[in-house]
């Protein structure tokens, strides 16, 4: 094995992460064997690797296939798994009803505010009336500092929007992964 081959196998291994360890090392071992056969065949390593195609694409083919696997027939068979599935579906369903709109609202609101803040800052710099920057105790941000202060606020809202988006995405992923496990997928040919 030379450097290029090692790098290819390492890249493949890294991208096969969603697979169980056993499948992962089996796949890497077989591709390693393929590369060695190609080299023994007198082909340059670069040609063998080019023939295999991009390591990430190859890994994706393995992983995509893994998700389409034929499930064990007892997926919904036993009472225990039936109860668990029902609890999971109704539990996440109920939870999603609150979590998803709340996070979506938070994200879009924070995003809008992050855009609106600098605009308000500029307007206040030009003494447009009706824009208050200060606390209830009567302290106000000096007019000249309106724009920098608004930028700080905008950054805070942007962070909030980003966090909301990440949370929502993570939550959806988690729930979808759960559903994927439950669904009685049949293998799709090809």
């Amino acid at each position: 094995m030379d450097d290029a081959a090692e790098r290819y196998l390492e890249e493949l291994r890294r991208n096969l992460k969603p697979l169980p360890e056993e499948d992962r090392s089996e796949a890497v071992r077989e591709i390693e064997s393929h590369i060695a056969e190609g080299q023994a065949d007198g082909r340059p390593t670069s040609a063998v690797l080019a023939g295999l195609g991009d390591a990430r694409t190859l890994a994706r083919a393995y992983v995509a296939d893994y998700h389409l696997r034929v499930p064990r027939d007892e997926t919904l068979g036993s009472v225990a798994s039936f109860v668990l599935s029902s609890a999971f579906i109704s539990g996440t369903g109920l939870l999603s009803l609150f979590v998803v709109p709340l996070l979506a609202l938070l994200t879009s609101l924070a995003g809008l505010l992050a855009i609106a803040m600098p605009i308000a800052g500029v307007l206040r710099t030009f003494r447009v009336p009706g824009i208050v920057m200060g606390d209830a105790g009567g302290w106000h941000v000096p007019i000249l500092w309106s724009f920098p202060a608004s930028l700080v606020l905008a950054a805070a809202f942007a962070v909030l929007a980003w966090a909301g988006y990440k949370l929502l995405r993570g939550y959806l992923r988690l729930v979808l992964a759960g559903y994927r496990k439950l669904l009685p997928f049949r293998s799709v040919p090809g």
Partner: protein
Amino acid sequence: MRAGEWSSQIRRGTLELCVLALIASKPRYGYDLVSALKRWEPLATTEGTVYPLLRRLQREEKVEASWEESAAGPPRKYYRLTPHGRDLLERMTADWAELSEAVREALLTEEEAKSHG
């Protein structure tokens, strides 16, 4: 390139049939299989695509595999058809013959219509 995508889909579907047929003739390891497929230009796929396919065929118990030492070089993973795989190959072969015959006739009919009118 509409035809390009279309023909790559056809190839993907028929690759499974060809792989099963090649394994049926004798136990084969991946590299051997890839080299065998290269003999026919339309079947020569990216070599990598054969391996995830083999993995799936093994999981679906259409083929079984075992690692064997080779005289020179690294161990090889040999694939053989299971009885289930053999049944499947028979049915797929029959389906393929039927399908290709039907397509041939359909294309012929179209040719005739063109020349008559």
